[in-house]
């Protein structure tokens, strides 16, 4: 769990041109604005981080999660978004059902005596490998082991509820068509939605008033003018005549008050009543008994492409094949922002202190810090870019001065470029090779700065290896503080821009005159959670005495 770092997506904050600042990290509601780096996207056009909450999503293909068949979108609606082949989920436990031949599997030793989905004796039925439910118990058997969904869909479509629903759709369709036509012709687009809902509501309430005596007819303009409006409303619907009376449905399903009471009277185990999630997809009037549940065709899944909500550029575009994990377009934040991992100095440090009394930072390895101590921590920043970057970390001030203070190196430091070759280097050799780089550049300067100021020796650049730079920080927890040590941190980095277009400004601010002009800066917020801080027992006594 701890320590952890999450990245901020500004989509939840009101923007007024400035870089929006994140909410205080200690609020529980802030978690909605922070995401793991790998869940974020990056829009190159807008130069901004995007998250799953703010991208616009469109379906690029449907597939069955069980047989992995790619369903053409034309037939998805006709098949009611479910697999139309041989995939069913168990009504009891929702795991996948197998088609078995008539001879039931002998589960005495866990070995089916008749091969699953093999040519066997008709009739065939569905069998759950997890809870041993079988469809023969609800009188569903098949003459052929293929095309089962079509056979089941026939039942589904002839159910009174779905017939009624089809009729309702038919009934409303001409009305919706005319209202959308009329609204598009002479009304602004905004009010068409309003008109559409209000007249649909009116129609529904008319039906409701007829079914249930005592329910007044809904009128958005007020009761007193109802009579006049009725004549004025040219969108008035023809009355819908239900094929079945509303009350009849409950009898169809075998449910209803008396039947349910009778069922509960004779119930022996709780499992006899179907749970809400087992009945969720059924109509309200279905029976409560779990023995009446029917197998479901498996709902389809979809592959989605994602777009930037502002500029509509595509951020994610999957390959057509359903089970491919490759993408034609994939603009993820991990390829743009440095990846940061948080840790406590371990191994050598902890090994060294084992002989001594476990003091201050030694407890950090469990993620539990003690109040009244200063605890070193480390941030390892990995550069994903092919050019070196300069990074500056600026932790936000913690609002409550009595809680804790965070110290991090304030001077910018560099992270070497990412090079493909390092990936293929055989791993252990990597450690030695880069050591000679350690002496140069900012490291020396950084440490000298620190020493000159006589500040914390844990703070500063600790290690530089390949495209990873590790910096040390320290958190000073005030005595008596209890709770998670959590702070926001602004990360600003400058990088060499690929496109030298001067017209594209925005974040393009040449930061230094010594550098070539195509240097851009980008900054983003993160939240770092170093885990809980506890008040040590002896400290508590000290404080009391």
């Amino acid at each position: 769990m701890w320590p952890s770092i999450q990245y901020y997506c500004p989509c939840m904050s009101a923007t007024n041109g400035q870089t929006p600042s994140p909410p205080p990290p200690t609020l529980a509601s802030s978690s909605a604005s922070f995401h793991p780096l790998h869940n974020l996207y990056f829009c190159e056009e807008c130069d901004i981080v995007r998250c799953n909450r703010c991208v616009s999503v469109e379906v690029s293909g449907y597939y069955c999660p069980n047989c992995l068949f790619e369903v053409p979108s034309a037939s998805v609606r006709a098949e009611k978004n479910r697999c139309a082949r041989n995939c069913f989920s168990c009504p009891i436990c929702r795991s996948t059902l197998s088609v078995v031949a008539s001879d039931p599997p002998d589960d005495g030793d866990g070995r089916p005596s008749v091969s699953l989905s093999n040519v066997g004796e008709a009739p065939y039925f569905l069998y759950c490998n997890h809870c041993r439910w079988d469809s023969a118990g609800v009188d569903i058997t098949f003459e052929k082991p293929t095309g089962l969904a079509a056979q089941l869909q026939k039942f589904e479509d002839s159910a009174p509820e779905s017939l009624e629903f089809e009729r309702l759709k038919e009934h409303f369709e001409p009305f919706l068509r005319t209202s959308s036509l009329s609204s598009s012709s002479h009304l602004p687009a905004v009010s068409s939605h309003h008109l559409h809902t209000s007249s649909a509501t009116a129609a529904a309430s008319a039906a409701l008033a007829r079914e249930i005596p005592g329910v007044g007819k809904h009128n958005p303009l007020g009761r007193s003018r109802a009579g006049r409006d009725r004549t004025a409303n040219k969108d008035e619907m023809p009355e819908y005549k239900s094929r079945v009376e509303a009350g009849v449905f409950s009898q169809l399903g075998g449910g209803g008050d008396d039947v349910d009471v009778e069922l509960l009277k004779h119930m022996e185990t709780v499992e006899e009543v179907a749970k809400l999630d087992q009945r969720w997809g059924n109509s309200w009037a279905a029976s409560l008994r779990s023995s009446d549940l029917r197998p479901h065709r498996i709902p389809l899944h979809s592959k989605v492409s994602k777009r930037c909500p502002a500029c509509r550029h595509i951020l994610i575009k999957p390959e057509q094949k359903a089970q491919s994990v490759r993408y034609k377009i994939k603009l993820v934040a991990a390829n743009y922002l440095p990846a940061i991992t948080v840790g406590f100095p371990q191994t050598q440090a902890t090994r060294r202190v084992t002989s001594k009394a476990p003091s201050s930072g030694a407890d950090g390895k469990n993620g539990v810090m003690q109040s009244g101590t200063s605890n070193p921590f480390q941030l390892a920043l990995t550069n994903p870019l092919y050019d070196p970057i300069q990074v500056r970390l600026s932790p936000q001030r913690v609002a409550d001065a009595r809680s804790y203070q965070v110290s991090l190196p304030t001077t910018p430091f560099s992270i070497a470029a990412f090079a493909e070759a390092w990936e293929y280097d055989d791993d252990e050799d990597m450690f030695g090779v880069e050591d000679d780089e350690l002496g140069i550049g900012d490291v020396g300067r950084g440490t000298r700065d620190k020493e000159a100021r006589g500040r914390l020796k844990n703070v500063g650049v600790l290690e530089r290896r390949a495209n990873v730079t590790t910096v040390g920080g320290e958190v000073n927890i005030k005595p008596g503080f209890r709770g998670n040590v959590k702070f926001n941190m602004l990360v600003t980095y400058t990088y060499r821009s690929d496109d030298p277009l001067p017209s594209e400004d925005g974040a393009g601010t040449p930061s230094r005159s010594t550098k070539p002009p195509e240097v851009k800066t980008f900054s983003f917020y993160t939240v770092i959670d170093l885990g809980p801080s506890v008040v040590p027992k002896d400290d508590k006594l000290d404080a009391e005495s």
Partner: protein
Amino acid sequence: MDAPVYYSKTEFIETDTGNKVSRRATIAGPQNIILGGKTIISSGAIIRGDLRRTGPGHAVVISLGRYCLVGDGCIMRPPYKTYRGNFNYYPMKIGDHVHIGAGTVVEAATIGNHVVVGKNCIIGKFTIIKDCAQVADNTVIPPNTVIPALALFAGSPGRFVEDLPESTQEMVEAQTKQYYTRFQPLDR
């Protein structure tokens, strides 16, 4: 940054291709098992390469790709069924960058690349796990289940929970490589 995972140098055998196999693991029928390289078999694991398809000739029973990890006390057993009256075992194929948590029992038919299976799971017979899928800790996957690509499954029985992020492949690859690097011998 992450701390190395130390193991006792005497416990593990390292092969030419960088596989690290614990002497405390039970490897039955090693001639029927293929390790792709840089794969770690932890102590207490049981790999049943002896449960081979009946019939003459050489048969690969279990094949693992590169950068895999078989956790402590895992049981890897090829799936079996009776087909047309004949009882038989079927091969198990596991891709690259697959981590299997401690105490998990695997009887899957196929596991793709970049798959992470949690601790104490049961992966039922003939399960097919596609690329970049993940199975949470303590999940029971019933036999014949198919886990689609980039899906997270959890629970008993294991069910679809959510779609994994698009960058799962890179994450798992980095993670498995890093684990292999961290897995270091310690003389003691």
